[in-house]
């Protein structure tokens, strides 16, 4: 089956502005979008730049705009799209394009680091297990599925208006530690959330939840942080 891919191309060293390049790919309806990008790069044009690593929805490096929707290129098959055999592939919105489909995720990870994305147990290592109840584990479990693909943050309309807003991905990671019974700095973490660039930046628009390729109820998790702040 012949499919047409219109791919966003931009090399800041050469191009004054972005352009779209068309490629024709012979592909099956069960091929992934990533398979087609690979076919383009391996068989037609090795200069096309995009990120990917595991190709199985675990590493979170190939989030792209596919036909105007944010998706992981490795999780979507051609037949998942109702647009005939025509596909438009663009980089994630919000972030600056480094080259072609590759965006600069440094600001994304900078915000991620701001929430101290690690357990601060506040106790010395000992030979005893640090027990967490299964209820507590289940409560934070959705957030553990996050692969940091940046889809949610790229989709969030608030992020576009408020550049300093932490954004859904970083807030989701904050949720994961605020509600982890083993963490010792819950109050410090909550205090950091209590401002317009923290969790109050979220206006419950659900775009993050809608695009999340791991189906994490991000908006609800952020709601739990808001509730905890109100109950304090």
């Amino acid at each position, binding site marked *: 089956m012949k499919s047409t891919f219109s791919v966003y191309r931009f*090399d*800041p*060293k*050469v191009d004054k502005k972005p352009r779209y390049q068309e490629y024709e790919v012979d592909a099956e309806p069960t091929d992934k979008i990533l398979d087609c990008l690979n076919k383009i*790069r*391996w*068989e037609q*044009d*090795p*200069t*096309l*730049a*995009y990120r990917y690593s595991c190709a199985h929805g675990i590493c979170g490096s190939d989030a792209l705009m596919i036909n105007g929707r944010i998706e992981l290129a490795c999780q979507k098959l051609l037949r998942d799209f109702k647009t005939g055999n025509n596909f438009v592939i663009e980089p994630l919105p919000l972030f600056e394009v*480094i*080259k*072609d489909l*590759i965006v600069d995720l440094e600001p994304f990870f900078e915000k991620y680091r701001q929430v101290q994305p690690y357990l601060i147990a506040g106790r010395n290592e000992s030979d005893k297990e640090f027990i967490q109840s299964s209820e507590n584990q289940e409560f934070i479990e959705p957030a553990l599925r996050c692969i940091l693909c940046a889809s949610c943050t790229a989709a969030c309309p608030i992020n576009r208006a408020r550049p300093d807003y932490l954004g859904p991905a970083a807030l989701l990671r904050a949720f994961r530690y605020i509600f982890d019974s083993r963490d010792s700095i819950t109050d410090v973490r909550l205090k950091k959330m209590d401002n317009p660039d923290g969790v109050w930046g979220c206006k419950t628009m659900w775009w993050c939840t809608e695009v999340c390729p791991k189906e994490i109820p991000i908006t609800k998790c952020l709601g739990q942080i808001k509730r905890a702040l109100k109950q304090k």
Partner: protein
Amino acid sequence: MMGGIATDYEGRVIIDGKNTPFRGLYAAGECACVSVHGANRLGCNALLDTLVFGRRAGMQIKAFVQSVAHPKLPAKPAKSDAETIRILMKSSGKETSGNIRAELQESMMENVSVFRQKNSLTAALDKIMQLKTRYQNLAIQDKGNCFNRDLLDAIELGHLLDLAEVITRGALYREESRGAHSREDFPERDDVKFLAHTMIRYDEAKGVRIFTKPVAVTEFEPKERKY
């Protein structure tokens, strides 16, 4: 691939059959082969390789870096890598990474897959050597230095070719069937000749060399799998 960078149980990379460590070099996890349970890539070994031996390697590294002074770097440490990249970028050859990799994958799938035999393995080795020659004629179409996937592909392809050679030579050497290695021409397990780890080293003067490391048999005697 079964195996990896050979290490001891402290994550130190070893260079011979007597567990002599290569000073200051450590490996753990996916790339390494600590030979847990006597082999590598058995079910659940990956978990041990990361959690247990990753931690052990980390503790060793911490102790090591605290015990030695900062070594002097050679005058131009990046020189040889820079030269490799320069040659690749300048090449005006006709070959592309995509074609060579596709042919390599096809041959490895056909000849070095689950069931192997001397003929198929020899055919694969010939093919790999041809592809290595063609690799010298590789051209990089992307001449830029920003996210140059074309160049990255070429470098990775060079490593793939080396790995394919190592896997195939190891499979040719082991004239028996054991674990996941099934030789149709040697269907039986042969503990007399092959109760040993296959070790492979490469250096420019001597090329690829195969030797063995004895298996440390402790409480559990290795037995043929009969189920």
